[in-house]
């Protein structure tokens, strides 16, 4: 007999309240998680989209990439040794559009590699968000430090850095704008962290992301909110089921007296927890994915099915733990106490 479902059907309001709270908390968690992912993409998609590997920058740069300079002999040595290695530089800057309006961008240049856009002299490839600013293929853009003009050759999707669209330019043009002769970093895909080069410090992808100013602080705050909400939902389960169990101590005692196994009572609360959580999660996943589709263009929001699935599994585990903790009191219920109490 499915006691769990029968109780839910008979006490719709009570379980609807619990379900609504789980729905709201999980929905809020998905939205915050979507914003965290969105901001993370907005801040560092350029780096996050690279495969796992090792970044190298000058030891003297004090883990600050825009202070890093890799001399050409070291660069040539590494690029000749490591087949897919690429040297690259990036700096924040701006481009003037045809109306002479400044557009903030992150200039990126690299040696020949399929990991970055390879652009010819006087050409630029932009992140597709620049289309929203009215920039089209063939437009001519300028920069105050650059003697020539950039012709827009194309757009790439989701290439952002430090909340600015990326502008891929030629190495020669980059060096002219920033008056530098060296590249800032070298990236070795699938690189081994134990591989060392004289005068260079190595970083994994994650470690390198943490050197980006504001990235770590931003992500830590948002992730803390997400996990805080997950823990809150677990506590809500524990508190709600505890309160419901306290009200049913008499009933549980009688059921134990007539011979119902304690494990059946645990099954009852686990089943109820699973039913409530699954229904609430289905609704919050649906709503959050719908929001993902209709979120305003400029809003940094990215919520993948994989993330929602992972979080949903965490919610189920947390719900299970919360319900189990609240159910521990069931083990202690003595049938005798229940019999001596009044009507349940």
């Amino acid at each position, binding site marked *: 007999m499915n006691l769990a479902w029968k109780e839910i059907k008979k006490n719709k309001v009570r379980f609807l309240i619990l379900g609504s709270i789980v729905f709201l908390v999980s929905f809020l968690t998905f939205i915050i998680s979507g914003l965290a992912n969105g901001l993370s993409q907005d801040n560092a998609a350029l780096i996050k989209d690279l495969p796992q590997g090792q970044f190298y920058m000058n030891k003297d740069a004090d883990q600050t990439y825009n202070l890093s300079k890799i001399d050409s002999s070291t660069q040539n040595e590494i690029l000749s040794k490591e087949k897919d290695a690429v040297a690259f530089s990036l700096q924040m800057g701006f481009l003037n559009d045809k109306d002479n309006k400044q557009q903030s961008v992150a200039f990126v240049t690299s040696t020949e590699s399929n990991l970055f856009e390879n652009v010819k002299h006087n050409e630029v490839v932009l992140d597709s968000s620049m289309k929203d600013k009215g920039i089209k293929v063939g437009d001519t853009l300028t920069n105050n430090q650059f003697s020539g003009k950039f012709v827009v050759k194309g757009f790439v999707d989701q290439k952002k850095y430090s909340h600015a669209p990326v502008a891929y330019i030629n190495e020669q043009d980059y060096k002219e704008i920033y008056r530098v002769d060296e590249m800032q970093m070298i990236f070795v895909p699938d690189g081994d962290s134990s591989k060392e080069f004289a005068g260079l410090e190595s970083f994994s992808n994650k470690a390198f992301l943490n050197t980006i100013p504001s990235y770590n602080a931003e992500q830590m705050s948002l992730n803390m909110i997400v996990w805080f909400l997950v823990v809150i939902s677990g506590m809500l389960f524990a508190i709600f089921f505890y309160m419901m169990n306290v009200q049913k101590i008499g009933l549980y005692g009688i059921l134990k007296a007539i011979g119902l196994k304690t494990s059946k009572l645990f099954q009852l609360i686990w089943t109820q927890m699973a039913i409530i959580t699954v229904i609430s999660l289905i609704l919050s996943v649906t709503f959050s994915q719908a929001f993902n589709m209709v979120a305003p263009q400029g809003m940094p929001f990215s919520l993948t099915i994989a993330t929602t699935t992972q979080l949903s599994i965490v919610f189920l585990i947390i719900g299970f733990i919360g319900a189990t903790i609240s159910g521990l009191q069931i083990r202690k219920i003595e049938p005798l106490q229940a*019999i001596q109490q009044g009507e349940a």
Partner: protein
Amino acid sequence: MTLFTIDEVRKTFTNGEVKEEILKGINLSLKEGEIIALVGASGSGKSTLLTIAAGLQPASDGQVIFEDNNLTSMSSEEVRKVRASKFGFVFQFAHLVPFLTVEEQLLLMLDVSESKLKKSEQKNEVDRILKLVGMDHRKNSYPSSLSGGEKQRVAIARAIIHKPKVLFADEPTASLDSKRSKEVMLLIRDLTKTLNITTLMVTHDEEMLAYTDRIIKMSDGVILQDAL
């Protein structure tokens, strides 16, 4: 034929440094089909004796033998199995499951007692027992819509649906008025006689003693009188 033997059962409760002996070596045999009333003043130990006999709490000393099984030496899981399959319970309050209909209360008991009946046979059995207690017309009702007397009838039906050998009744009429009490007592007597169920009942109500076969009077943890 003796079904139940209570042999030198003692029960002591410790409250801080004070030890209180509630049962002081009780000896009792229950015969099949008998209706036995345990009477006595509050604190005489009658409810404690009933709950020890029913396997709801352990004795401090002595033995409770039911059908050659020593309940006092069994594990709690083994005692639970005996309670589920061989015992029935009626309490002062009906203690029905509030979210189950009358029919479902009885089906739950068959489930708990691990009844071998098929689904359709279980439903037929529920109908039969509900007719016996005069509650067949309320089988789809929830406890909240039943009167006190009706709830107690359903509790009795739940207690006997799995054909127990012993029915333990702890003040089954205490929450009912005089008329309903007599009806419920008559029902317990008729059913247990028809189904040959041994009944051990605790009561304060002397009027109910007319429906029993044997009266055991207790005082201060000992049996004062055992009268047929």
